[in-house]
């Protein structure tokens, strides 16, 4: 649907019966990939919700005291233990990368190849930094004796849930980083301008793809906010 036709459609609440009662598409002018990403993210939300709810149940049912996250995740800065220092930096980097991603989407739609590519690259580097810091955090905790099955600070479920949930989230970030690098290359090669066909899918490249990747990236950031709140602050 072109922009002119879209503008004629009812807006606000009235758009719901009008769109659902119409033929061909239920979400007018929405790209298939974008719709699919939204539905996937809904499903993924359920995965992370199940993880976090299990974590809350596990924390409630374990018989040993839960370790104090402020102490466990403290980092020595100039000889003073600062609680959650590394996590704060990680969170800052990840949220910033959401900003650069949004810029990349904007420049993508403006067909500004150079800036779009640069911002995608910055986002990828932000994600990579996050994963790197997470690897550092993991190795630090492992050195301190935290294992999935036990830890010196208290309930064994602490380590189990920590490694499982941050690992699952870190996998999401890593997959995102891989795609960000692939997309950076595609942008600089001009795939999105020329509409080059995908190697496997034989579908034409389109700048919408950057927005779709952006949706995924923002989602991963948002999930981190919840993990941060429930695991590190509680």
């Amino acid at each position, binding site marked *: 649907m072109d922009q002119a036709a879209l503008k004629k459609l009812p807006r606000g609440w009235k758009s719901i019966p009008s769109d659902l009662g119409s033929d*061909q*598409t239920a979400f007018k002018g*929405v790209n298939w990939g974008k719709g699919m990403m939204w*539905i996937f993210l809904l499903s993924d939300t359920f995965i992370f919700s199940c993880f976090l709810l299990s974590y809350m149940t596990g924390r409630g049912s374990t018989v040993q005291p839960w370790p104090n996250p402020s102490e466990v995740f403290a980092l020595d800065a100039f000889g003073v233990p600062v609680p959650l220092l590394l996590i704060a930096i990680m969170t800052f980097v990840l949220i910033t990368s959401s900003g650069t991603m949004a810029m990349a989407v904007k420049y993508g739609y403006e067909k500004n190849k150079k800036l779009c590519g640069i911002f995608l690259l910055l986002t990828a580097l932000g994600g990579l930094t996050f994963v790197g810091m997470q690897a550092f955090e993991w190795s630090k905790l492992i050195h301190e004796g935290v294992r999935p099955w036990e830890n010196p600070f208290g309930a064994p479920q602490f380590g189990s849930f920590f490694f499982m949930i941050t690992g699952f989230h870190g996998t999401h970030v890593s997959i995102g980083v891989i795609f960000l690098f692939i997309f950076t290359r595609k942008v600089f090669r001009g795939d999105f301008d020329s509409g080059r066909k995908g190697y*496997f899918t034989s579908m034409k490249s389109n700048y919408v793809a950057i927005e779709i990747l952006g949706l995924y990236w923002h989602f991963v950031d948002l999930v981190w906010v919840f993990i941060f709140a429930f695991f590190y602050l509680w």
Partner: protein
Amino acid sequence: MSDEFEHKIETKADTIADAGSVTSGSTAGIDYVPAHERPDQELYHSHSWWTTYVFSQDAKYIGIQYALTAIGTGLIGLVLSWMMRLQLAFPGLGILEPSSYYQFITMHGMIMVIYLLTALFLGGFGNLLIPLMCGARDMAFPYVNMISYWAFLLAVIILLASFFVPGGPTGAGWTLYPPQAITSGTPGSSAGIVLMLISLCVFVAGFTMGGLNYIITMLQSRARGMTLMRLPLTCWGIFTATVLALLAFPALLVGCIMMTLDSLLGTSFFMPAMISMGEHLSYDGGSPLLFQHLFWFFGHPEVYIIALPAFGIISDLISVHARKNIFGYRMMVWAIVGIGALSFFVWAHHMYVSGMTPWFGYFFATTTLIIAVPTAIKVYNWVLTLWRGNIQLTLPMLFSLAFIVTFVNGGLTGIFLGNVTVDVPLSDTYFVVAHFHMVMGIAPILVVFGAIYHWFPLITGRMLNEGMGRIHFWITFLGSYAIYFPMHYQGFVGVPRRYFEIYDSPYIATSTLHLNVFITIAALIVGAAQLVFLFNLIYSARAGEKSEKNPWKANSLEWLTPEMPPGHGNFGKELPVVYRWAYDFNVPGADKDYIPQTVPPSEVRSAKVEKT
């Protein structure tokens, strides 16, 4: 519908047509259909035999691949059930070890629920029918769709591989409850259970790829004129089931990941402190109940993931073969959506005896009984569709009728089990086995058979043999009752389920155990009847009677393709334009007893059709 209202719609359509300039001529007013919203889909065109038939990106082929893999796996499940029945009937012969009995129970359950029925209804019928019924060229993302099938095949291979690992497959029961699932003493507690969990994770990943495709295709890739409320109910059933699956499988995935870690890394998510073989295990402080919640949050919607596509398909079969519009189409749609939504609030009725507080049980008993309301609406509507219909006793109709009877039967026992006070004494007896086999085993399988007899011509261009089909039908239908009716009685007198052998017991009359022999003989006969069906499939695909186009005189788009079986891209050069719902049968004033969805109103001016 009043004339005044029709007039309003027509004048409105007139004005839109004049302003929109899509069609011209005197029929523009009543034949108005909105213009194309998007350019035609670009398809992947295969170049070789491999990319056409094996690594196919065409939803029709993927659907057939799914269906054949699912049926093949299901046959293994059938053979397992034979072995268990032989053991129960003739315990003296020593056919099975106790451990193999548990392993067969587990594999039979998991195979039938997930790898046969879920994969067949959503992967098989979903892929085959969704693009065709919506008037699309293919799924939205054919490549992702292809990967979905290969992930499913991988999941099946991993599952079957567990037969060949040390210790054999898991014997934890299909619910895989920890702690026993991964504690020594349970068959397959080391390698078998891990393979089962990994297989389920792969299945969920593969299904997600397919499921996203089904949803987006139905929402965003319909033909001109195809509104959501003109979709055949098959589409609605599969659509809602897919939504359920995308929201319910996450719980299974998380449960599987956590139990894999418990098993391999020694975490204690689900494992409390335990003493096993006189030794303290290293586990401590986990919650077995958590797994039950995760499992049943998936497990109950799973019942409807199987049932809803069956509901949808049966509605279409009944309507076509009774030559009558489906009674209360909108109510049917809302019932499907309502059942889907409610199915997320009933899971703990599987856990009445798990030690939950009874108040919790009463909440779930209430929601469980509420879900009976939309389900009953559906049953009444099927019966009312049949009422004064021109019922053709074709094979799909026979299976549909058998479905209604069986489903009502299983549904009624569900009301028994949904109430806490009645459920507690019946828990873990053969009554439960009889209930769920009737309602989610036999009933959906009857739909599968009906659907295969109905759509076989669409796939192969040939009809299935009628005579063999009738033999298959009567043995399957009556035989299932011979198997499961006695089980209700066994359950009432207290025969426990999952027992490898019932010894002489003062609590169970030995006479009830003689029923086991009868049940087993019935099961063997019903199983053998499926061989007739398989032979029929192979024989008819090669040498069956050639089918005419649209052999059942149906209205929906899958029968209206230029070639049959439909070719690459489904609809030839021009995509179809839809003017009506799929249920215009025996419309007063029409020349023929059916009006396909693509017939414009100007061609059937005299027919008093319902506005859809």
